[in-house]
C-alpha cells in the first residue's frame, strides 16, 4: 500500500468519491450514485492518463483544501472551478481547469469554489487507494455504501493515492466549451396526460427556476405550479436519472444520481441523456426552459454528445 495521501485541511461543502455509478442494485433500493456530470468526470481522468472509470473526487460549490503528503503526483481539475496551487515555499499559482499539473510533496490544492456551475472533479494519476463496493467506488451517503464508509469527507480525513509512474505523463490540455444556453430537452413522461391542457403548454413554453432545494438527489424547480387533473399520486414505481416528477404541490423535481429507486409522483417528462450533465450543474436561481424532443431526436443528440466527448478525449495524449 502506498503512503502518499491528501490530508484534508478543509473538507468543502459536499466532497465525495464518485465514478460511473453502481448498477444492477436498484431492485433492492440501492441507487446508482456516480458523478453528477459524467463528461467532466471522464475528462478529468483522461487528463492524467487514467482509465476513464477510475474514481475521482467530486466537490460542490466550495471544494476541499488538500495537502499532499509523502509523494509527488500528477492531477487535473475539470468543471468551471476557481482553484489555487499553494507551493511548499508559500508561492501561489492560480490553477486552470482542463490541464494537468504536477504537485510536489507538501504542496496544497485550494479548491475555492465552482463558478457558474455546482460540481467539479479532481483526478490524480493512478487513482486513489480505495476498494470497490458492488463494483463501484461511488459514495452513497444515504445508505453509507462505498468509499470513505459511504460518507462525505470531513476535515482531517486522509485520501490515499496509489503509486504512479510520473515519468510517462505528458502535459495535457482540453479546450472545453462550457454550456451556454439553458434549454433542457425532454421526452414526454409516462404520466404526461395527467396534467391539464394549460399546464402541458406551460411546461414547454414557460421558464422555470432552479430553487435552493437542489442536491445530488434532485433539483426542485419553481415558477409555475403544474395542475394535475387525474391523480397526484401513482402506485410507486421505478425511477431513472432525469425523470421529472410532479408532487401534489405542482412544483416539478428533476431526479439526479442519488434519487430514491422508486417514487410515487406522476412523471411529466424525462430529461434526455445528452442533457443530464447540464441539468446537474444548474445553480440555484438559474432559469431554464424545457423543449420537447422525440425519442429519435434524443438518440441523435446523444450521438452528437458522444462525438463531442470523443473530440475532447482526443485532445489528450
Amino acid at each position, binding site marked *: 500500500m502506498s503512503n502518499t495521501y491528501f490530508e484534508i485541511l478543509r473538507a468543502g461543502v459536499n466532497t465525495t468519491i464518485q465514478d460511473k455509478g453502481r448498477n444492477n*442494485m436498484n431492485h*433492492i*433500493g440501492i441507487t*446508482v450514485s456516480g458523478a453528477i456530470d459524467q463528461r467532466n468526470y471522464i475528462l478529468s481522468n483522461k487528463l492524467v492518463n487514467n482509465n476513464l472509470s477510475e474514481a475521482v473526487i467530486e466537490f460542490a460549490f466550495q471544494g476541499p483544501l488538500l495537502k499532499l503528503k509523502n509523494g509527488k503526483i500528477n492531477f487535473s481539475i475539470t468543471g468551471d472551478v476557481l482553484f489555487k496551487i499553494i507551493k511548499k515555499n508559500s508561492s501561489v499559482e492560480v490553477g486552470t481547469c482542463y490541464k494537468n499539473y504536477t504537485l510536489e510533496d507538501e504542496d496544497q490544492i485550494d479548491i475555492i469554489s465552482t463558478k457558474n456551475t455546482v460540481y467539479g472533479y479532481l483526478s490524480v494519476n493512478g487513482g486513489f487507494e480505495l476498494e470497490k463496493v458492488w463494483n463501484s467506488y461511488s459514495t452513497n451517503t444515504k445508505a453509507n455504501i462505498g468509499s470513505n464508509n459511504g460518507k462525505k469527507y470531513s476535515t482531517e480525513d486522509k485520501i490515499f493515492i496509489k503509486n504512479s509512474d510520473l515519468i510517462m505523463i505528458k502535459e495535457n490540455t482540453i479546450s472545453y466549451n462550457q454550456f451556454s444556453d439553458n434549454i433542457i430537452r425532454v421526452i414526454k413522461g409516462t404520466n404526461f396526460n395527467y396534467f391539464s391542457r394549460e399546464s402541458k403548454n406551460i411546461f414547454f413554453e414557460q421558464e422555470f427556476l432552479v430553487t435552493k432545494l437542489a442536491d445530488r438527489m434532485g433539483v426542485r424547480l419553481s415558477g409555475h405550479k403544474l395542475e394535475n387533473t387525474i391523480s397526484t399520486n401513482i*402506485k*410507486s414505481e*421505478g425511477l*431513472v436519472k*432525469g425523470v421529472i416528477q410532479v408532487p401534489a404541490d405542482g412544483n416539478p423535481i428533476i431526479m439526479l444520481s442519488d434519487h430514491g429507486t422508486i417514487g410515487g409522483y406522476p412523471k411529466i417528462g424525462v430529461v434526455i441523456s445528452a442533457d443530464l450533465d447540464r441539468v446537474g450543474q444548474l445553480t440555484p436561481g438559474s432559469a431554464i426552459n424545457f423543449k420537447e424532443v422525440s425519442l429519435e431526436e434524443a438518440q441523435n443528440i446523444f450521438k452528437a454528445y458522444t462525438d463531442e466527448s470523443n473530440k475532447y478525449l482526443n485532445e489528450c495524449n
Partner: protein
Amino acid sequence: MIKNISNLGDAAVYCDFGSDVNEKINLNVISYFNSLSKLVKESKINGINNIIPSYNKLIISFDLSITNYFEIRKIVLDLNVSNKIIKNHKKIKIPVCCDDEFGLDFNRLLNKTKLSKEEILELYLNQEYFCYMTGFIAGMPFLGDIDKDIRCDRLETPRVKVPKGSVGITEQFANIYTFESPGGWNIIGNTPQKIFDQSNLEEPALIKPGDKVYFYQISKKDYLNWNE
C-alpha cells in the same frame, strides 16, 4: 402479462402490467425481472444498467452508448418467461416493539380507525404479508396487504427523519425503514433486526420481492437485548 411497453426517456423501457395491485400481477412482474436478470448475469444482454420491479411495472434502464430502446424492447417481447424460477421465496419473521416511544403515530391511528391500540395490533401482527418490492432506500420492503380496518393515509406533513428500524403502515401496505430517512408512513413500532446488511455482499437485503413476512411483538427488554 405486459399490457403496454413504452420508452421512459431515451434510456429506459417502461413495461406496464396494468393498474391493479395484487399478488398475481406482482408475481408476473417478478418473473420478468428474474428472467431478464438471468440473461444479464449470463452476459447474454449488454448495456442493461438496472431492472426495477414494482407493484405492476418493470422499468429497465440501459446505457444508450451500448444499446437502445428498440433493442431492449425486442428482448423483452421475445422473452421466454419462466414462472418456475419463483420457488425459493422465504418466510421471514420480524420482531417489532410497539411501545409508545417507538409507535410514533398510534394517536393518529386511534383517531382515524376508531380502534384501540390492542385492536390495531391484533389486526396487524402475526399476519402473512407479501413483499411486492424493495426500494426507495436500500432494502426497504413494501409489504401487503394489511387489514382494511387499519388502513390510513400518509401523514399530511412527512417527517424529515424517520428513525432507522421504524415499522410503518399506509393504505394497504406495511414497510420497514432500513435507514434513517425522510418519510410519511404511520409508524407503529421499531424492529431491532438488521433488514439491510451491506457486509453480506451476496444478499444484503433480508427481504426480497415474493417473500412472505410476519411481524411479532417483543418487549422493550427483548428489543434492547436483541442479538442477531
